[in-house]
């Protein structure tokens, strides 16, 4: 974990209301793992007061990037910053995704939950030597313009499936419907595959989607990692503000999402 003032190398609009920003830091980029995030101080004037969390989209040797949607004060300020401006960054933070032997990887993303899944897919293909053919990416969005990272995923050569609310690309409806069909075809619980299950799912996006994907993981008995999005203050375990209810023995406890997560095993989370 480092605290640095980073120079902006690029900050550009990539879709309606969505920006991709690249910041210079060899320290942070060297240590970052897919699923981890940075805390960004959008303003030095205490307004907004708290830093904002964003997941890594991509890293190279000397810089890292993240993709953000303008939703409020902080992201609005961020979107007005220019190449050469500096911002205070804390990171990398949290626990990222993990890979145990899996024959097939299924990624399910929606909205600004897509970027960390792209980072993970890229890592799997380029560093962890997972064949792109064994990676299945399912993205959901309102409109095709919000299927973030579509081109980048396709460049990796992974299987790509899309669902949009308005039918402008792929399946018209929920992405989880596509995922259900896929698991039906490829898992033994689905009954059409005699091979033992070595499917592993990863999901990040709006909470209703995370819940639906977790339910599918349970139904088809596949392991699943979920990256949760909860309001955070510090981002490194000092305030205990970002609680999430998880199983403990027969009861529950509140895990701290910024340092124990944001990636959790789906079966641990107790959704309300």
């Amino acid at each position, binding site marked *: *974990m*480092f*605290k640095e003032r980073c120079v902006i190398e690029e900050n550009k609009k990539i879709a309606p209301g969505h920006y991709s920003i690249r910041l210079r830091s060899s320290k942070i980029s060297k240590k970052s793992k897919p699923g981890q995030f940075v805390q960004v*101080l959008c303003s030095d004037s*205490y*307004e*907004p*007061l*708290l*830093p904002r969390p964003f997941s890594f989209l991509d890293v190279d040797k000397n810089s890292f990037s993240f993709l953000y949607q303008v939703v409020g004060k902080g992201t609005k300020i961020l979107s007005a910053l220019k190449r050469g401006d500096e911002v*205070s960054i*804390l990171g990398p933070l949290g626990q990222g995704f993990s890979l145990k032997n899996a024959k097939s990887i299924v990624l399910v993303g929606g909205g600004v939950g897509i970027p960390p899944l792209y980072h993970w897919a890229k890592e799997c293909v380029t560093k962890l030597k997972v064949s792109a053919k064994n990676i299945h990416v399912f993205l959901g969005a309102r409109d095709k313009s919000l299927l973030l990272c579509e081109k980048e995923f396709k460049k990796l050569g992974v299987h790509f499936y899309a669902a949009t609310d308005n039918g402008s690309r792929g399946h018209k409806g929920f992405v989880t419907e596509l995922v259900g069909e896929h698991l039906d075809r490829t898992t033994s619980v689905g009954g059409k595959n005699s091979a033992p299950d070595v499917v592993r799912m990863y999901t990040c996006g709006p909470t209703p989607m995370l819940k639906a994907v977790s339910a599918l993981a349970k139904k088809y008995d596949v392991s699943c990692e979920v990256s949760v999005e*909860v*309001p*955070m*203050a*510090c*981002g*490194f*375990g*000092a*305030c*205990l*503000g*970002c*609680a*999430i*209810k998880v199983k403990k023995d027969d009861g*529950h*406890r*509140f895990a701290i999402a910024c*340092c124990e997560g944001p990636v959790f095993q789906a079966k641990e989370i107790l959704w309300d």
Partner: protein
Amino acid sequence: MGLNLETQIGKIQLKNPVLVASGTFGHAKEFAPLIDLKKLGGIVTKTITLKPRLGNPPTRIVETPSGMLNAIGLQNPGVEKFIEEKLPYFRKLKIPIIVSAMAYTVEEFAEVVKILDREDGIDGFELNLSCPNVSYGTKSGSARMFAHDEKMIEEVVGAVRKVTSKTLIAKLGPDVSDIARMAMAAERGGADAVALINTFTAMVIDLKTRKPVLANKTGGLSGPCVRPIAVRMTWDVCRQTKIPVMGIGGIMNANDALEFLVAGAKAIQVGTANFVNPNASIEILEGIQAFMKKNKISNIQEIIGSVKNT
């Protein structure tokens, strides 16, 4: 020019007046990769209770203009696990460690402190009489905070005083009509110092759902928005009590800290600022040193209580 930043809270000799506030500094370890903890004047731990507490369900925090609301609900491992798992790390830092403790009854307060008092590496206790985010479960069922009642403050401080000879600090809450009277009650009870302020009880409502944003409904307001009130309260208390005051509330930088010191606080605690800038406490310390150099002040005591009331 040699600078002397030493100051005293009860029996604790502090090498400088910059401490970190309870509940805003994790268990200190979280900050180790970022700052040199040994430079701090001292650390006040997250509040510890007799039994472990799970804390409140989410949502626990929400940002407000120049501030934040929290309702963490004193999530903590309980006194035994604290001693076993957290205290050894604090001990190794070799800086003053003040353990914050909270309980639901006078007897339980004394019990928690008695257990902690046997341990090495604790320099003092801060009694959290003012957490707004837990129900105190009195017999009548109505939540009653110790810090809201002079008699209760005097009684609980008195009871704890009997079980420890270490420095005893009463942490007061701001939701009272006359905080100086609360501080005087702590003084009568035998407190060595008072720390103020804890957070203000406050609420944010989500207009879409018309529900309070926090699951606990109300939370504690902290951050720069509370600072002027905290300075006024510090000033009020310093004029009316003899025991030292630790000033807390919205301190973001050295100038903020200096206001409290000028108002009469013998030391200050940095809270919410730790979330915004993990290095805030050290930068505040360095800023105070720079201020002293610039103004040719060699001893921090020349600043403390130097407010001109006329």
